[in-house]
C-alpha cells in the first residue's frame, strides 16, 4: 500500500495543515479524542509526540506537556495500546515525533514493526543524525514502509539540504528559525530562507514549522511551502480544555477559515 503521507501530497500540494499534539495530553486517554477531532475539523496530518524526560529541541510549552503526559502514565507501550485499531476511524496520515532514547530502548526494529502494525506512516526523531540513520537504521524503516522525516534549518547548507532531501521520505520539515519550539521570531526575517528552499526544487514536499501559531503565520508559511506545522500554539489551546472537541474545532477554524 502506498504510504498515506505520499497519498496526501499527491492530491494536495498547498496549504497542508499538520498539527502536533503530545500523546497522553492533557489527560492520558485524550490521545484518540484529540486525533479524532483534528481529523474531523480539517487537519491534513497529525504529528503525535512521544513524551520524553529530556526533550532537548523543545521550548517550555512542549516540555511541560511532555512532563505532564509522563506523569499521566504515558509510555511507548501505552501509546501503542491506545493506537491499536485507530485506523478504523482515522484516515489522515499520522507521524510519531520523539527523541531517540525511548525508541532505542524499545528496540528500533520492534518500534518500526509496531508502528507499521497500528498504522503509523512516518517518524520524526530530531536527535537521530542523518549519518547514523543512513548506515544503521534506514533498511529497517524502509522495510516497514515508515517515512523518516528530517529537519532543515536556516543554517543548513545547500549541499546538506540536498543530502537530507535524498534520505527523506514523505516531506521535509523546514524549521523556520534556528530555535527550540515555540519561540516567537519574526516570520519576515525568514522570507529569504523560504525562497532559497523553494528555489532548490527539492524532490520532497516541504512543511514549515516552529513559530506557526495562527492564521497569519500559517498563511505566510504556506505561501512558501506545501504547508505548515503547528505545535506549541495547539498545546496551549488544549492545555486547560474542558471540551476537547469544541477546543479543536475553534482552534482549527481560526487557522483555515
Amino acid at each position: 500500500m502506498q504510504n498515506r503521507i505520499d497519498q496526501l501530497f499527491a492530491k494536495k500540494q498547498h496549504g497542508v495543515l499538520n498539527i502536533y499534539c503530545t500523546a497522553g495530553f492533557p489527560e492520558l486517554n485524550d490521545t484518540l479524542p484529540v486525533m479524532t477531532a483534528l481529523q474531523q475539523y480539517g487537519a491534513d496530518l497529525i504529528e503525535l509526540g512521544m513524551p520524553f524526560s529530556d526533550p532537548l529541541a523543545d521550548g517550555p510549552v512542549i516540555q511541560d506537556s511532555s512532563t505532564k503526559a509522563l506523569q499521566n502514565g504515558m509510555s511507548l507501550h501505552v501509546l501503542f495500546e491506545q493506537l491499536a485499531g485507530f485506523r478504523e476511524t482515522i484516515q489522515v496520515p499520522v507521524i510519531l515525533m520523539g527523541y531517540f532514547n525511548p525508541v532505542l530502548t524499545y528496540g528500533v526494529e520492534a518500534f518500526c514493526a509496531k508502528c507499521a502494525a497500528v498504522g503509523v506512516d512516518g517518524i520524526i526523531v530530531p536527535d537521530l543524525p542523518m549519518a547514523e540513520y543512513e548506515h544503521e537504521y534506514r533498511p529497517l524503516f524502509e522495510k516497514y514502509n515508515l517515512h523518516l522525516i528530517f529537519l532543515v534549518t536556516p543554517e543548513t547548507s545547500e549541499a546538506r539540504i540536498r543530502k537530507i532531501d535524498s534520505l527523506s521520505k514523505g516531506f521535509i520539515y523546514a524549521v523556520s528559525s534556528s530555535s527550540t519550539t515555540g519561540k516567537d521570531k519574526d516570520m519576515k526575517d525568514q522570507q529569504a530562507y523560504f525562497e532559497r528552499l523553494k528555489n532548490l526544487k527539492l524532490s520532497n514536499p516541504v512543511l514549515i514549522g516552529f513559530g506557526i501559531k495562527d492564521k497569519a503565520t500559517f498563511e505566510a508559511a504556506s505561501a512558501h511551502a506545501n504547508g505548515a506545522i503547528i505545535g506549541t500554539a495547539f498545546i496551549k489551546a488544549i492545555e486547560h480544555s474542558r471540551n476537547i472537541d469544541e477546543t479543536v474545532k475553534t482552534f482549527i477554524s481560526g487557522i483555515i477559515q
Partner: protein
Amino acid sequence: MDIAINTGNSRYQVDKNGYYGRFGGAYIPEMLYPNVEELQSQYLAILSDPSFQQEFEALLTDYVGRPSPLYFAKRLSEKYKSKIYLKREDLNHTGAHKINNTIGQILVAKRLGKTRIIAETGAGQHGVATATVCALMGLECVVYMGSIDIERQAPNVARMKMLGATVVAATSGSKTLKDATNEAIRDWINNPVNTHYILGTAAGPHPYPDMVARLQSVISEEIKKQLKAKTGSEDPNYVVACIGGGSNAAGAYFHYLDRENVKLVAVEAAGHGVHSGHSAATTQLGTIGIIHASKTLLMQTDDGQITEPYSISAGLDYPGIGPMHAHLYESGRAQFLSATDEEALAAAYELSLLEGIIPAMESAHALAKLKDLPLKEEDVVVVCLSGRGDKDLDTYIRHMKK
C-alpha cells in the same frame, strides 16, 4: 604539550567517527549541526596550533598555578600500607580541575570568533571556572544551574555573579544538573552563531568528550614527569579517580590509557547504596542509551526515560557517564567501584586528620576506595584529588560526629 597527540592506534581513544567502541557519537538535532560540525572540524587543528599551546601553557602556569604538586601522603600511605601520592588539583585557581578545561575552551572559543559563552553547572564549580575565564577574557557569560542547586549552592552562585556571569535557573524536569545541561543545549540551539558552549565534563556530543579529555590530560602529563622524578618510573600501579561525567578521571588516565600495566580505578557515587534507589552508580545501574547527545551508559526506566540520580556530592550527581568511560568499563580497561555517601564522608574526615587536607566531596569518593584495593607495600598509587572541600563545609559540619 601532548594534548594534540595522534590517537589513531589507541583502543581507548576516540575514533574518526567520534566513537569509543560502541559509545559516543553526536546525537544532535539539526539545529545544532552547524555549531557541532564547526567544533568537530576545527578542534584538533586549534589544539595543535603552537600559538594555542603557548597561550594555554602560559595561563596554566601563571594563572592556574600549574603544575599542581604530586604530593606523597606519608601518613595516608602508612595507614594503607602502600605508597600513595595525591595529585593536587585542589590547589588550582578556583579550587578544582575544572579550570584546566575552561581555560582551554575559552581559547578555542576566541579562535572560533565567538563572543558569548554558556555553560551548565551542578555544584557550581564548573560555573565558577567558566565565569572566571570569561572575566579574564572579557566575554559575556551565561551559566545554567538547576533551581534546586541554586538554593543549595548559594556561595558559588554569589561567586559567579561577582565574576560578572548571569546565572539562569533551570526550572524544567528535576531542576538539577541534567536539566541545567538541557537548558544550556537549548540556549545553544537558539544562539547558533555567536555562542560557544563550554561543556564541563567529558560527556556530550563528539568532539566534547575528546576535547575535554585532551584539555584535562595535563593532569596525567604532569603525573608522569613528577612520578619519574620521585620514584624513577613514570608508571604507578594504580590511578584512582572519581567519576560523575568523568573529566578529572579522563585527564588522570589519558596518558596511561595504553599502558596496560597501570591499573585504572574509577569510583562512582553509590549514594545510599547501589541498590537503594538513591544512587548515581551509572555503570552498575545503567544501560545503553542517549543522554545529552552521546550514546553511552545512563540510568533510565524500562521505557527509556532518563531517571534522576542521587549522591551527597553534587558533582557526581549525574545519570550518565562520558562515552570514553563507558568504553573503559565495557572493555575492562578500568575497574569501576562505587563509594556510598557514608564511605566518602569517612574518607574526607580521614584525609583531613591524617594529611591536613580537606578534600572535595567528589574527590573523597576516590579516597574512600583505598581500603578496598588489594594494595601491596611496594605499590605506587596516584589518587586524583580533583578539588578542595571549601564548598562542602556545610555538609561536612552537618555530618561531623559530635
